[in-house]
């Protein structure tokens, strides 16, 4: 039996913010970002880290394979592939639907998990489910867990920065916890879900040669992309606004840490 991993990465696009993006109520009653459709798109950064980690792991583990499952407007996905496809080898599973940040995590997770179930040749016993621990457009922090649950993957790790495969095939995983510390876990092996933080790898360089190879499967995948309706579920939005940033600066010398903490707690409570 092969030891390779079948790594499925969930990730899609987010608008490349040129200026602060203003949320507004759309005509359909769902919120949207002002001028979002006019902005160029980029790969959601956390999903990007997940993809690059996946490719790196696949490259050093023979007989591994990477899929990228993306839900987003088809034409925009295609444009995104012009850069992404050059970075690392993968096979695309495209879902034509909204990539808005105002959709409901469970609705997105449902579409993604159904698409993953439909991947031909995917060996679920060797599967590592990767994604971002958050998204630049919807910081729900729940999507990947729900996808995992729906696929009956119960070993779940969040805010992962490092994954090592031990000689016995077990996975040693570092998750970010508070105070700049890591929680180190060892998991017997796949299947597992890893929601990545930044990981440790730089963004791979573009290489059109890799791109040309990927495009052979990406273009047909885009052509047969199923349309999915990802919505806001039962949520209703009363109003939307940009979180206000406040800065009040006071310069005080030699204040003990306890005193600073006390002041902060007071400020938060007030």
């Amino acid at each position, binding site marked *: 039996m092969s030891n390779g991993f079948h790594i499925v990465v969930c990730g899609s696009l987010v608008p490349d913010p040129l200026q602060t993006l203003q949320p507004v109520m759309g005509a359909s009653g769902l919120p949207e970002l002002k001028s979002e459709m006019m902005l160029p798109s980029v790969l959601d950064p956390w999903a990007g880290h997940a993809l690059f980690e996946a490719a790196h792991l696949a490259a050093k583990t023979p007989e591994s394979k990477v899929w990228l499952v993306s839900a987003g407007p088809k034409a925009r996905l295609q444009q995104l592939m012009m850069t992404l496809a050059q970075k690392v080898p993968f096979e695309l599973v495209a879902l034509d639907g909204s990539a808005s940040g105002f959709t409901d995590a469970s609705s997105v997770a449902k579409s993604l998990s159904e698409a993953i179930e439909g991947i031909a040749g995917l060996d679920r016993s060797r599967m590592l489910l990767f994604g971002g621990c958050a998204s630049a457009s919807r910081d729900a922090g729940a999507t990947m867990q729900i996808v995992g649950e729906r696929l009956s993957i119960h070993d779940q790790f969040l805010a992962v920065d490092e994954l090592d495969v031990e000689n016995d095939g077990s996975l040693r995983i570092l998750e970010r916890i508070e105070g700049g510390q890591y929680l180190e876990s060892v998991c017997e092996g796949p299947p597992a879900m890893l929601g990545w933080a930044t990981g440790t790898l730089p963004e791979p360089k573009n290489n059109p040669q890799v*791109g040309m190879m990927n495009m052979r499967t990406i273009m047909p995948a885009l052509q047969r992309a199923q349309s999915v309706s990802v919505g806001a579920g039962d949520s209703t939005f009363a109003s939307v606004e940009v979180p206000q940033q406040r800065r009040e600066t006071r310069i005080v010398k030699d204040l003990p840490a306890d005193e600073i903490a006390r002041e902060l707690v007071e400020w938060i409570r007030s």
Partner: protein
Amino acid sequence: MSVASVQDEKTPVMQTLPTDEVRQIMWRFADRYDLQMLVQSTRAVARGVVARIVAEGARNTHEWTDAKDQMLKAYDESGITAMMSTPEFGGYLAGPKNFVMALTAFELAWVDAGAATCSLAAGLALEPILEKGTPEQQAEYLSRCVPPLPGEDRKIARGAFCLTEPLPYVGVDTGIMCGKVRVAEWEEGKEPLLQVDKRGRFITNMDYANFVVAAVESDDDRIKGTCMVILEEDDDGVYDRGAVTHKLVHQLSSTRDPIFHMTVPASRIVGGYTIQDGVVVPNHNHGKVLEAVFARTRVPVGVMTAAKLVSAVEPIIRYQRGRFRGGEGAPGTPRYDLGLQMKEDVLHRLVDVWATGEAATSLGLAAARHFDEFEELDKTRDDLYAEAGASSVREILKIRKKTEKLALEYLDLLTQSEEERDEARIAELKSNRLVEFMIGESLSNILSPATKLWNTGQGANMMREAVSLMGGYGITEDCPGFLPQKWMDSQLEATYEGPESVQRRQLIVTMTSELFLAQFRQWIVELRTLASERPGTGACTLGSAMELWLWTYRHLQDSKDADGKPLYRDKRQGATFPMADALSWLLACRCQILDCLELAKKGPENPVLGDALPGYVQFFTDLCHVQAAHAAGEVSRICADLVYGYNRHPSWDPACEQCVQAGEIDCLEGLIPGISVGARLSGDVVETDGSHANKAGPCPHFTGMDGFISRRNKLDGCLTGSRLAKDRAGNVLSQVMIPEALDYPI
């Protein structure tokens, strides 16, 4: 600026700077994923490694440094180096390379033109081999120029192209060379060994080139004429990289004055040779190779300057908007939000910079696409002549003359209405490959020099405008977007691969081709039709300017100066060169309009553009209009100068025909009452005491100039609306969203 007068609520406004989707449609590579990927990959290198080393001061030395070497490695890793090769030899892009070279040059020059030159010069060294090399030479160098694949143990071949020589030899004039080739050894029945002696001046890539393609002339009865020859670093003899050139520009590229004294086998002659009566006869003389190489490689140089103009837009907007922030005026006030953009002039000047950049890019990329489309046919030219039974120079000239007539007939038939024209004849002429070849060739001969001439020359002028918009910042090393460096660099783009005079010299010959002129006339008709379908692009203005140019051209052909000397002659560069410049203005503007119309036509097919499309189309339409007015003004000025400037101004000299002597008209007063008063009113009378009106002489008469005057008057009127377009475009520049920061270091 009075916004209300030029923009109502319904006028769509461009929200963001043009995206990749917009560019892919305008520049016709929306369906070329391979090119889109290479663009992205090149961009990452340009705005990554290249920008970083420029920001760190890599341009402060003309020596080759580790930092500059990193750039080459980045080219190797990102597919830039391998783009010149073909899949057969380890590359990944099939087909012609003109458009891809232009796009790569665009992306690299967006940050630094010297970086673009490095990549371009590697291509320049390969071009002679690609164009005229033997199949063996092509196989060897196309595979060696590809970076080694993992596991492969070999050194990549990087080349230099060595034509220019120390003074007083090869420069603009490539005819007289001091580079020599002799027979070093020629054993009976074996391949001759050649002794090559060549000194180069200003040779790009010389710090690291491990092969050189050099132009040399025979200094031996046993070798005929001139040729280009490949020299390898490890060949016997001296391969001296020579002194470094102390460049003030393009410091990211390598330039030196090398010296070669080497012995190489005759098989290194580019394109091979035959032996005739004991003499080595190269299959291609150096002129023939140069012609093929320069026709193509000058285009990406023009695209480089174009890219820099377009790249200047974003940093300038950011500077203008932020100019007063931090002082008086809180967010929400015009002083804070708009900064310098409260002033109309800075917006208008930026519109001009952008419009020039658009026109230049459109022209350059149109030229590159033309060369791609024409390449296959061009390569079969000798076969086509042979098929037509022509082998000697005379026979070829004869068949060309005959074919030109057919081609003209074909072009003429195309202008006739579809109901009336002879479709069978059209089909017959269309299937004649020589006809197709000659039409394509006439365009190649124009598009390449026009791109090089106009883009780099006018581009350099407009880069100065761009720099001036940054105030004092514009002439410091810290200027965002490296604008002052880009300005200075433009002067090199205008110089190497043949300065402007070389391009003008070519154009004044090639634009006399009746085949070209027939197409030019056809374009005027097309522009009028386009103008009626989509008014506002300035297409009609351009059509009128083209008519004025055509009239002037015909006029100059038959005219003489005040001393009776013909005007349109090779030696009279003063009378001919400006017409080449004027033509280039027109061509750039036409390509810009066609690209804008392409966006309007194909944009709706791209769902990504959606609601943003109308804003882009409106903005580019306005830029076209602005540019058309600018071109019309230039052409008008040039033509009027040439049409009137060679006539001698009448003087107050009593012998002058146009002078009216007071005595003569006073005598006539008896016969024609009132004449003496009337003539004096015109101010051209010399009184008996020799006094006359205060002016240079009697006003000249314009007999025979009606055609010119009416066309020029019409053209002036065609400027109607162009300033409104400029107001609108300027207004958009004060609203368009830009990123918070530039996407490369400063």
